[in-house]
């Protein structure tokens, strides 16, 4: 079995083992009901109440999750040489530019660095890491120091793509969250799918290296937004926007079709 397939399987088993799944679903349903009650009030306080209720039950549900090893793996094609990609990555200062959960990586010495991530509710999580292996233009591996609260080991490989297509980089990061609130915070930070988070990070890296900037629409103008859509986004940030396609609209459309 290839390394990629093995890791996919392991993550899948990890997901499967969340025995709290049933509990979480029920909590989500409760949260949803709370949200509906709050939203039916059609006031700002109602919405706030509803979202807070929903978030609380969601967070509560997460406590049931088992501590385990979390693996994030992804790869991406960059339109640059392996050396250019290596140079960018080996300067750890650059990592927070595209790894959104990282606040800073500070070099303590040539091989040691202090990593700080921002978790839920702005909670800072820090750990120290050292370079485990480093070969110019080829591979960088790092691991957290033995006395760290959190173990985060990572490796990035740089491989020249065929002809002049650039460089394929492959990244694997293994997280070992401790028990307790710190572990829960880390698990929350990584979201439902660590691979997804890694894909997002590498997309930002690609845009930064190729286009010189990360595309964004944050802060642009728009007309009046719906509080229902805003609440839905807070409840589940990973869910694509669904506009106003609700039951009433479907009924209306059906009426028009007939």
């Amino acid at each position: 079995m290839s390394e990629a397939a093995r890791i996919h399987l392991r993550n899948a088993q990890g997901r499967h083992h969340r025995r709290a799944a049933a509990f979480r679903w029920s909590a989500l349903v409760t949260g949803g009901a709370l949200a509906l009650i709050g939203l039916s009030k059609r006031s700002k306080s109602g919405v706030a109440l509803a979202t807070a209720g929903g978030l609380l039950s969601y967070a509560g549900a997460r406590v049931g999750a088992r501590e385990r090893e979390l693996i994030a793996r992804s790869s991406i094609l960059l339109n640059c040489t392996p050396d250019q990609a290596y140079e960018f990555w080996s300067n750890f200062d650059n990592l927070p530019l595209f790894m959104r959960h990282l606040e800073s990586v500070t070099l303590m010495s040539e091989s040691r660095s202090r990593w700080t991530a921002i978790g839920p509710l702005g909670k800072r999580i820090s750990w120290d890491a050292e370079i485990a292996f480093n070969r110019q233009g080829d591979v960088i591996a790092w691991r957290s120091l033995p006395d760290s609260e959190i173990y985060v080991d990572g490796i990035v490989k740089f491989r020249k793509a065929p002809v002049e297509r650039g460089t394929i980089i492959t990244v694997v990061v293994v997280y070992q969250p401790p028990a307790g609130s710190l572990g829960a915070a880390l698990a929350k930070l990584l979201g439902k799918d660590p691979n997804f988070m890694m894909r997002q990070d590498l997309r930002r890296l690609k845009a930064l290296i190729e286009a010189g900037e990360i595309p964004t629409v944050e802060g642009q103008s728009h007309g009046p937004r719906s509080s229902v859509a805003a609440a839905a986004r807070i409840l589940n940030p990973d869910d694509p926007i669904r506009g106003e396609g609700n039951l009433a609209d479907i009924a209306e459309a059906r009426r028009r079709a007939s």
Partner: protein
Amino acid sequence: MKAVCWMGTEKMSVENVPDPTILNPRDAIVRITSTCICGSDLHLYDGYMPTMEQGDIMGHEFMGEVVEIGAGVDRNKLKVGDRVVVPFTIACGRCFFCQQQLWSCCDNSNPNYWIAEKVMGYSPSGLFGYTHMLGGYAGGQAQYARVPFADVGPLKIPAGIPDEKVVFLSDIFPTGYMGAENCNIQPGDTVAIWGCGPVGQFAIKSAFMLGAERVIAIDRFEYRLQRAQEAGAEIINYEQVDDVVQLLKDMTGNIGPDACMDAVGMEAHYHGPIWAIDRTKQVLRMQPDRPNVLRQCIMACRKGGTISVPGVYGGFVDKMPLGQYMNKAITMKTGQTHMMRYMKPLLDRIERGEIDPSFVVSHRVPIDKAPEMYKIFRDKQDHCNKVVLDPWANGAAAA
């Protein structure tokens, strides 16, 4: 500034919103002088494209004057004061796809890549004012717009050419032209084009430019068929014939058109049980598309022929004649328009007087009338063919 906002299905409204600002180094701000309603905007108006959100600013066919540029914009390519047409696709200019001239497949311009990735496997480029799945960028039916990667897309327009002759370089002229180019037209070819809206009209003219012998245009609105006929096409009003596919065979000596173009897309109109099935699924949001034109294209196309699809589709469809497509050795070419390939050469054609794209315009109105024009355009009232909005009519900017 004033902006046309999507407030829900069939709910458009002109709102006062903050002026756009530079958000990224390669951004520019354009003061818009002309902006249009596109047929593909009607898919949003009718609520069939997923991931629109209340308050989104509409519009992807606009031109104007550059009033501000970010620090990262290449000054040799764009500066304040330039008069530009802005293409509806947003491209970084530096990724694998941009370098292959596949501009509408740019890998770095969609901040919501992951949403499109979920639906399509990979994301095409970001678009102005066309769902959050395709970037969530504020559109150009407004007085100002923020244009990302401004040193790649916008095409400079010399003074002296009126807006109406060049504004359609923002989408429909290149889209019709690429639709025709994708037909792989050879000398003596017959091209059948479904849909005689503005894209279809440009496609008819482009097909003749590219050497087509015959163009057969299919629609149901007489005023559109009349425009097609004036452009030199033979016409079929499909509501007045029993079987379009059989008629196309009869018109071509039973060999079929060498190329078929679907310039209709997801909201086609047709009859019979298949219509009832598709319509019901669309209303229940089980299937975004009514893909009957594509089915007819596959059935009508000659063996070894080409199908070109400039019409917009949203997702998975049922009842496609895939076996027919395979057994007849058909090639299908698709895609949002690779705008930057076509804008300059087509501007040259306009400057040489080979074509005056302003022939498509039927309505010129102030931006405040946009909401009612959406309805008129959708319902094909008042012979509505193409609507151009003036964002500054009545003189004053909104506060």
